[in-house]
């Protein structure tokens, strides 16, 4: 039954540009998808490894800026994508090595510090990043000769990547390594006593998480054809964390729901509500206080209670 629902949902998603009217909404759908990839990547750490990060926008940004620079240097898209992902993995390894020196709050604060350093570099190291003015990208890639310039084509390309991301997450979760990662979240001490190398497990999870954050960053760059320090600000990391927490960290689709919520609110609601940051903060506070397990599990809980109590 669940699989049927999942298949239907994926089919509907695939056909979005066909049944949604207007490029504005197709573009929002694209945003939802690549932010979902970002949120899924973060959830590997937050939900499965139990490590909360406030600096992942840094990895998102490293990928975007690296690709932008490579393209600006006159190289092709393939070089940009490969170069960006390679550098992102390297950065993820460095960040992980530093952040894993702490646990719990310590880990969070170190990721915060790292994120701020990346932001500081993006903002101030003007010779590399062009500072506040950002870097523009002249054209989207044309994989296999199909141009991604139109919203519909870009959406389908993003959708394809999204499918790969979700599939990789599903495989990861069901795998022995995935079980090891969750084990380190629940009983790190016990895992060590059972022969697991907890540090290395967390490190690899960080790399996996960083990779998908980098992929999301690339999609972001190609979507906007522009990157600026705003992409790596603390608000960006906070929004990404909100996507993960609001949707629910314990499920595969939670981060997707959360991304949909935050992106929709940000784009659509901001047309009606002036104060997006206020709303973002308020939702953050409300979810943390009232529904800490996230919207998806929370909604399931409410649904069960409602149907159980009803006549």
């Amino acid at each position, binding site marked *: 039954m669940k699989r049927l629902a999942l298949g239907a949902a994926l089919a509907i998603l695939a056909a979005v540009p066909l049944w949604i009217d207007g490029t504005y909404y197709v573009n929002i759908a694209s945003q939802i998808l690549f932010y979902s990839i970002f949120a899924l990547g973060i959830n590997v750490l937050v939900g499965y490894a139990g490590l909360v990060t406030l600096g992942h926008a840094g990895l998102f940004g490293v990928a975007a800026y690296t690709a932008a620079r490579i393209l600006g240097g006159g190289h092709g898209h393939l070089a940009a994508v490969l170069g960006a992902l390679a550098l992102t993995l390297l950065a993820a390894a460095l960040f992980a090595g530093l952040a894993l020196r702490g646990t719990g709050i310590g880990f969070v604060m170190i990721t915060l510090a790292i994120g701020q350093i990346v932001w500081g570099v993006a903002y101030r190291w003007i010779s590399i990043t062009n500072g506040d003015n950002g870097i523009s990208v002249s054209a989207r890639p044309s994989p296999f000769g199909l141009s991604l310039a139109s919203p519909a084509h870009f959406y389908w390309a993003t959708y394809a990547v999204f499918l790969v991301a979700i599939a990789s997450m599903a495989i990861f979760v*069901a795998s022995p390594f*995935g*079980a090891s990662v969750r084990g380190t979240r629940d009983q790190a001490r016990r895992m060590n006593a059972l022969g697991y190398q907890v540090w290395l497990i967390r490190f690899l999870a960080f790399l996996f998480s960083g990779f998908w954050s980098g992929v999301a960053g690339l999609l972001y760059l190609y979507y906007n054809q522009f990157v600026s320090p705003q992409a790596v600000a603390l608000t960006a990391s906070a929004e990404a964390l909100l996507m993960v927490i609001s949707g629910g960290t314990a499920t595969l689709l939670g981060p997707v729901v959360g991304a949909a919520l935050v992106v929709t609110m940000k784009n659509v609601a901001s047309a009606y509500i002036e104060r997006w940051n206020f709303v973002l903060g308020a939702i953050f506070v409300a979810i943390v206080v009232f529904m800490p397990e996230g919207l998806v599990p929370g909604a399931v809980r409410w649904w069960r209670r409602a149907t159980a109590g009803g006549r």
Partner: protein
Amino acid sequence: MSALAVRNLRKSFGGLLVTASVNLAVESGERRLIIGPNGAGKTTLFGLITGELRPDGGSITLFGQDITRVAGWRRPHLGMSRTYQIITLFPGETLLRNVTLSLLGLSPLRWNPVARLERQRGLIAHAREVLTRVGLDGLADRPVAQTSYGERRRVEIAMALAQNPKVLLLDEPFAGLSLEERRDVLRLVTTIPRDVTTVMIEHDMDVALDFAERITVLHLGEVVVEGTRSEVVADPRTRRIYLGE
């Protein structure tokens, strides 16, 4: 060659000397009981032996191999398993999954990010067999949250046994159990095969005495009395340590 030997082991926390030059040698197949009042340093000693804590001095050897500098996570691979005084099972999982995770810890499969854990029939069958050995196969698919404290304690021990250890360290396995549960655990512990060297920490002497062949009495981080069960029980120092506190 002893199964487990500890020489001049020392550990301080801040200014407090918790383990004060402890010497210990447990022979292969032996059943050793380590007792002592609270604060004697028993759990710290276990922590040092398993590698969770790093000693300030001294050495630890496992079947003649010096493991003092060996990382904690590697020691189970060398044949050392332990249980914890506070039950540390994986809360959201079934008993079967708990034992499976224990078996996975020693298997190179644990690094595999693409296989499906559910499909590892051999592993899962092995886990079920381990649960049968401790009489819990009926509860294999029960989540931990729906089991009793005594059952969880037996799963703890099962998880350690699952790794086929050469040396098994049991940290207060009877803590918090009812009389009947203690009998179950005692039965479990006494049926551990003789090729497993078993070292148990206990605070409560009554239940553990049946199990012990040799007893080491710790007090304030030092070995005060050591010998066979009858020797230690008869020794006036033992009584003084327990009654004098």
